[in-house]
């Protein structure tokens, strides 16, 4: 059986591998090359070395969007995970109607980012108008918190489902053993439940962190970077650099920013995975 399988290894792996090479590896390598080129289309690229990277780093708008993205990611990751975990704890309490609430909390995740962005733009602008504050287009602070609010609303339900799955996986016997051992509610939470949920935390923090860095649709629809690019996040900045700036040099710089962005997301995500995976337990 094993021999027969070995014989057909490439038949099984081949199509997927080919698709992966054509769809990911080649464009990625070409992207790397283009990040070191000046071009308007992929066919007229001229190699310029690392100058695109230097100009990308020197670009004040890029640095601003980097800072904004970091500030957004920290708040979003914390809020989404804390609130999702609290909801998961509440909805695993064997109370009536928990299934209805699970569904309701999950539903925003089914709506696309652009649609959500416009819905929340109307809502937030409505509230801002009521309290006589500048609207989103002129209010960077409201833009920042608006983006966080929108992301929380969209992602809490999804993360909550992952935490609920993790909590349901903890054996009732272990919780009862902790009760008999003398642990009170909060002690059970901190000393038994949370350490046993590390794999759920790994997944949820990874997802929320990468989602926060990659956020584009919602940013475009809610603030479009206004006012004056104060609320422009990395992905939106890269797109704007590539498509909205005049001059042949900007495409190469946009591509260089994209490579830097990719490296940043991979490094942060891998560091986080390593840190939380170490604390995971095998049952």
């Amino acid at each position, binding site marked *: 059986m094993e021999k027969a399988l070995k014989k057909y290894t490439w038949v099984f792996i081949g199509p997927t591998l080919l698709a992966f090479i054509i769809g990911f590896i080649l464009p990625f390598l070409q992207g790397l090359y283009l990040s070191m080129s000046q071009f308007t289309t992929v066919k007229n690229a001229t190699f310029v070395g690392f100058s695109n990277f230097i100009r990308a780093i020197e670009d004040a708008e890029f640095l601003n969007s980097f800072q904004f993205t970091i500030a957004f990611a920290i708040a979003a990751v914390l809020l989404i995970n804390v609130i999702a975990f609290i909801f998961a704890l509440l909805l695993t309490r064997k109370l009536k109607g928990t299934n209805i609430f699970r569904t309701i909390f999950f539903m925003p995740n089914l709506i696309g980012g652009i649609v959500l962005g416009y819905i929340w733009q109307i809502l937030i602008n409505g509230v801002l108008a009521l309290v006589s504050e500048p609207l989103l287009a002129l209010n960077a602070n409201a833009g920042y918190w608006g983006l966080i609010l929108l992301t929380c609303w969209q992602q809490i339900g999804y993360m909550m489902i992952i935490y609920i799955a993790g909590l349901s996986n903890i*054996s009732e*016997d*272990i919780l*009862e*053993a*902790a*009760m*008999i*051992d*003398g*642990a*009170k509610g909060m*002690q059970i939470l901190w*000393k*038994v439940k949370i*350490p*046993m949920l*590390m794999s759920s935390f790994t997944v949820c923090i990874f997802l929320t962190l990468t989602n926060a860095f990659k956020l584009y649709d919602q940013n475009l629809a809610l603030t479009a970077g206004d006012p004056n690019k104060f609320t422009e996040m990395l992905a939106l900045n890269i797109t704007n650099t590539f498509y909205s700036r005049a001059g042949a040099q900007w495409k190469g710089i946009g591509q260089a920013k994209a490579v830097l962005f990719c490296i940043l997301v991979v490094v942060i995500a891998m560091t986080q995975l390593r840190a939380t995976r170490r604390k995971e*337990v*095998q*049952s």
Partner: protein
Amino acid sequence: MAKVKLEHIKKIYPNGFEAVKDFSLDIEDEEFVIFVGPSGCGKTTTLRMIAGLEQLSEGELWIDEKRMNDVEPRDRDIAMVFQSYALYPHMSVYDNMAFALKLKHIDKKIIEEAVMHAADILNLKELLKRKPSQLSGGQRQRVAMGRAIVRNPKVFLMDEPLSNLDAKLRVQMRSEIYKLHQRLKATIIYVTHDQTEAMTLGTRIVVMDKGEIMQQDTPMNLYHRPQNCFVAGFIGSPQMNFIETLCMIDENQVYLMHQGQSFEVSSYLKEKLIKGNYHEKEVILGIRPEDLKIQAVSQNSIQGKIIIKELLGYETSVRMAFYEKEITAMVSSEEVIHMDHELKLYLDMNHVHLFDAQTKQAIAHAVDADLDVKGRNN
């Protein structure tokens, strides 16, 4: 260690199902009490009520003269060993055992002493740094026991602690638990559905069925003097054979009739049947497989075709068809037995048990004849 008293305890679930019906029991200090019975008989529910993991619907629970009905599990001073062991997977063996003491903020040195003492008793010293996932089933079971010992509780509760082990390890751990009881002199309440565990470990066994106590007694009494058909059938393996008979009393002669065949009972049983006025009433004759002998005696014997034989080593279990019933006998494995051949078995009437067919309660046990004679002489 402590006394445990259960008074008229009931457990009724919201859907009306009565899992435990009027359960009363006094457990003395240092006793090893076993709750045994088939699945769903309420033994684990009763244990969980003692632990405080289930609310009592009715009745009172006392541990050492203190009413425990509304006391939290952590304040009952009990320790429980779960069927699944329920070890904390993220903690080392040491931390698992020390957890309860750490929660009480006991001095580190005292905790270490207690853990090392328990580890010494259970041969766990070399495993203290390991995580539960790195242990075998038997080792996990020992850690679960260790976690209970470290706390030095008033009562140990054990919920089928050996059921997840393989047969060989179960026998080994059974004797470990027995030795542990001897050493700790602890009050232990132990739940099992395995009657061998019950018979070998318990100083007293509580046999349960459908939420009720069927009999509570010493292992020997349960075996020799079952109070009803349920206990007679549940205790002993292979289980007791039951033959439905009609009691015929003719002056001083008593016969038990089955399909035209008559069995003559001992004078002690005869007296009991006459006193109980069992003439023309149905009586169940119970006899254990080991009390059926292959002997060339025509009186009090039954004959039938062998349908199954199982060689168990020292003995052979033989099942034979007897009218519409199947009768099991344990015979020496040296006996030559052929499938489908006729077999004649002699009933040792000095070891039979009689039950009222209506109430299923015991009328008399032939083994009590000696006691009766001694009692009269005294």
